[in-house]
């Protein structure tokens, strides 16, 4: 079991949802508006006057074999636009109910 944390420009939401569905990922948790800034490049997403765009984030817990195809597809999506921004992080799940 791995947990996958995806942070992305709000505009990507529908595409990401489609990727999740395509890969038979049913469960996830979404924060509609989150703010942040990339470590290297890209515009900050603050939702204020200077930087009006905002991020959303999705956390999903999936079985190990699903991680790679998901990450691949997210990487392809990220490559479509440099300016929007999309990041995903994976870590282990130790236990759950």
């Amino acid at each position: 079991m791995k947990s996958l944390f995806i942070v992305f420009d709000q505009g990507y939401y529908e595409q990401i949802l489609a990727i999740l569905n395509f890969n038979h990922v049913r469960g996830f948790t979404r924060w509609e508006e989150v703010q942040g800034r990339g470590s290297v490049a890209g515009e900050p997403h603050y939702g204020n006057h200077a930087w009006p765009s905002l991020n959303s984030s999705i956390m999903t817990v999936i079985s190990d074999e699903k991680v790679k195809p998901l990450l691949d597809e997210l990487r392809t999506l990220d490559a479509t636009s440099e300016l929007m921004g999309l990041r995903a992080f994976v870590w282990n799940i130790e236990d759950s109910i």
Partner: protein
Amino acid sequence: MNLYESAVKKPVMTSLIFIGVMIIGVFAFNKLPIDLLPKIETNTIMIITTYQGASASDVETNVTRPLESTLNTVSNLKNIISTSRENRSIITLEFDYGQDINVITNDVRDKLEMVKSYLPDGVQSPIIFKFSTDMIPVIMMSATADKSLPGLYKILDDKVANQIARIDGVGSVSINGAPEREIQVYIDPVKLEAYHLTIESIAQYIRMENVNTPAGSMDVGNQTYSVRVEGQFKESSELNKIVVGNANGKTIFLSDVATVKDDHQERLQESFTNGVQGASIVVQKQSGSNTVKIANEIVKQLPEIQKNLPTDVKLNVLFDTSENIKHTINGLTETVLYAFFFVMLVVLFFLGRWRATLIIIITIPVSLIASFIYLGATGGTLNIISLSSLSLAIGMVVDDAIVVLENITTHIERGSRPKSAAIHGTNEVALSVVASTLTIIAVFFPFTMVGGMAGVMFAQLGWIVTIIITVSMICALSLTPMLASQMLRLDPKHSKAFKTIYTPIERSLDKLDNNYGRLVNWAARHRKKVVGFAVLFFVLSILPGKFIGTDFIPPQDNGRVAATIELPIGTKSEITKEVAVRLEAEWKKKYPEITMINYNVGQASSSNVWGSLQTNGSHIITMNMAMVDLSERKRSMFEICDSIRSNLDAMPEIQKSTILAGGGMSMMGGQSTLDVEVYGFDFNQTDKVANELAKKLKSVDGLQNINVSRGDYTPEYQVEFDREKLAQNGLNIATASNYLSNRINGLTASLFREDGEEYRINVVYGPEYRQSIEAVENILIYNSMGQSVRLKELGKVVERFTPPTIERKNRQRVVTVSSTVSGTTIDKAVAGIKDQLASIETPSDVYTKIAGTYIEQQDSFKDLGILLLLIILLVFIVMASQFESLTYPFIIMFSVPFAISGVVIALLITGSTLNMMSFVGIIMLIGIVVKNGIVLVDYINLNRERGMGIIHAVVEGGKSRLRPVIMTTATTILGMMPLALSTSSGSEMWKPMAITVIGGLTVSTILTLVIIPTVYSIFAGSGVKRSRRKMRHAFHAKQLDQHNK
């Protein structure tokens, strides 16, 4: 879910809601009536009181003054004007515009009820009369006839007036100039004397002979018969055979002492149209009904009416007020369509994509049509004000949509899907869209609250623009993102043709951006120079402002001229007619532009509503002229009028003349008038001042039609009876004067009935027996004993002059010297009048005051001036709350002075004046020019928040906002261009407004683009310096602290 999100997610609902709004709007539009101006409620009430037998000064002291002092307490009263003349007092109450006249009328009625008991016996109840624009005739027709002329009145009354009066909304139909039939019994006084008869006894005989009497009923056999005497005359010639007495055993017939003429009234107004005698028919509407509708209906029925008339009677429409209205409204509708087209071109030019253009353009019909719903719901009309509001708004409604669309496009270009781009793109700019809309509303909404004349005129403008702009904002936040999400594509494929056309445009636009960036960069580094230049430019451009004259409302060239020409008082109508014929022939030759001349000469009968409202008399010619349409003639109506005036001035037989360009047909759009009111109790003193002034005003440039209101002393014959002699002969004044009147004015003996109509039988001395003082003196008066006395033995006949009517304004006697302004502006004319006034010596208890259009202009300018300040304040408040700062709005306000420079330059170049319309244009400019500033400063701020340095932020901000600023400005300017260039009739009204806005906006935009970044860098620079200084101080203080320790 917010507005734009739900709109994007529910495209069906969104589009259907807007389609629904459009359907209701189109429905409302179809029902909208057409009119020239918004409905203006009358602001005057007239009170007419009759006091039979009292002289002018008696009426003044006993009726007018007590009424005035009571009526003076009515609220909202502006002026109280009165004229007291023989037998009659007329008080006119003038109120502020925009008051409910019905409430005021009730108030006036209460006040009159209160004062009634204090009026002398014999004064009749005061009559309240509301004057309104509805009194203006809708249509005037002429009827010419040949053989049917004697019976014309009856024909017209039966077949034309009755028909037209039946049309819904028609108030009254008056027939002028057609003789009314009357049977005249002209008595020969010599024969009368010989047979010992009197007019009274002859009238009595006629009355006795002309009766039908029912004599009851009787039974004959099984039947009941009624018995009747049918004595009524069947023909007027029967009168000749009436027996009026016996002399020496011989019967005297009426034909022995009189001639009976089946003729028409003696004193009558004759009407001529293009030289042919006939009658004129004037149609007035009921208050509140629609001119165009009535006129259309009348014109539709005319062929039907004509068919029923005798072949020699021809009906012609002399003028139709609705024609002018229709022309004007058509011209204006055309400008609205042109504006729409221009705006579309601008958007396409800057965006280069038809889909985007379509999305933006669609907001125009949606928001305009929404305003029709407002008009329909409030009972408004399509008029000059409402249509020019639409034309003004067209350029502004697309602004919000452009901003939203531009941002959505940026998001799509960054890689967002159209749907989420639409939602998030709109979200980002929603606040600034709302704020810029609020500044426009802050400008236009206060228009709905102005008082006075300006308020009545511009309330509709305020509402319409406010509604249109609000709807356009809602549209930009819902319809535009929805359409963008459905229609926009990333990298749409362009055809080859498109590329060849648009690539050079795009390249030049890019070049413009770069050059502008360089200019701003230079300006931001040479702040002092730029500010110095700007101040210099402002001062230099304002200086020529003093050459711009001021006016009230620009006069409109509608091709109608009304003239009143007065010959010396007492001139016979035959002579007056001769002068009229001569003038007509002369003018027709000299001014081929004139298509129709109609004139009336003589005294109007009392039963004629329209005629009796006009000035009339045997020495007065009233003329109406119509010219060909403005586009078909070289000379303007005003030039022709000036020329006519100088013609008349050269004719010594003409005593007084008033030529009114515009025909006095509308409250607005006529030429301005300037009056000087001379107040003072003493007639001689005020007369002297007024006459001297009138003489001097003739030398003032541009003043025409100079007239003194106090009429001439009218000559009359007065019969002064000696009471003692009367008493000796067993007579009294009442009996004696009755005899006099019956002989000169005549006695209605009876009524002659024919075909259900009644005509008067008038018994009177033959005309040849009442043409001299001797004839009057020789009148025989009989006393109760049957003895006869000549009038000259009872008194004497003297020639006297009756004192003129007494005019008062605000409870003081006044004489008005009135004039029309032509060929100059009000401020110059007023300066000229003031010069002349200073040169006249006035007695200490006489004082003068300038009135007329000048006062209305001053009032309106004052109202608009207050409005201007209020609007500047409101706009500042809106901006300050948007920026959460007092500095930025202050910076943006720097664009306002340059708008004023632009206005001065534009007015000078086009030779226009500063009038009410251009003043409104200036007010509108404030909202429009600050919009550009807001866009610029907002983006520069954003750049700085993103961490750029001041100059970098200014240059980048300017570069990125240049296109939207130019685009929104171009749509506004080009949207108004058709208004400014239009030459259709009525364009004089809105032209100054459009010229003002175009001039101000152009100059201010060009300068704003440089000045605002510069001023911004000055303020921001000093802000940065200040904070650095603070830091340094803190640092030093800290070091000092450490050192001290």
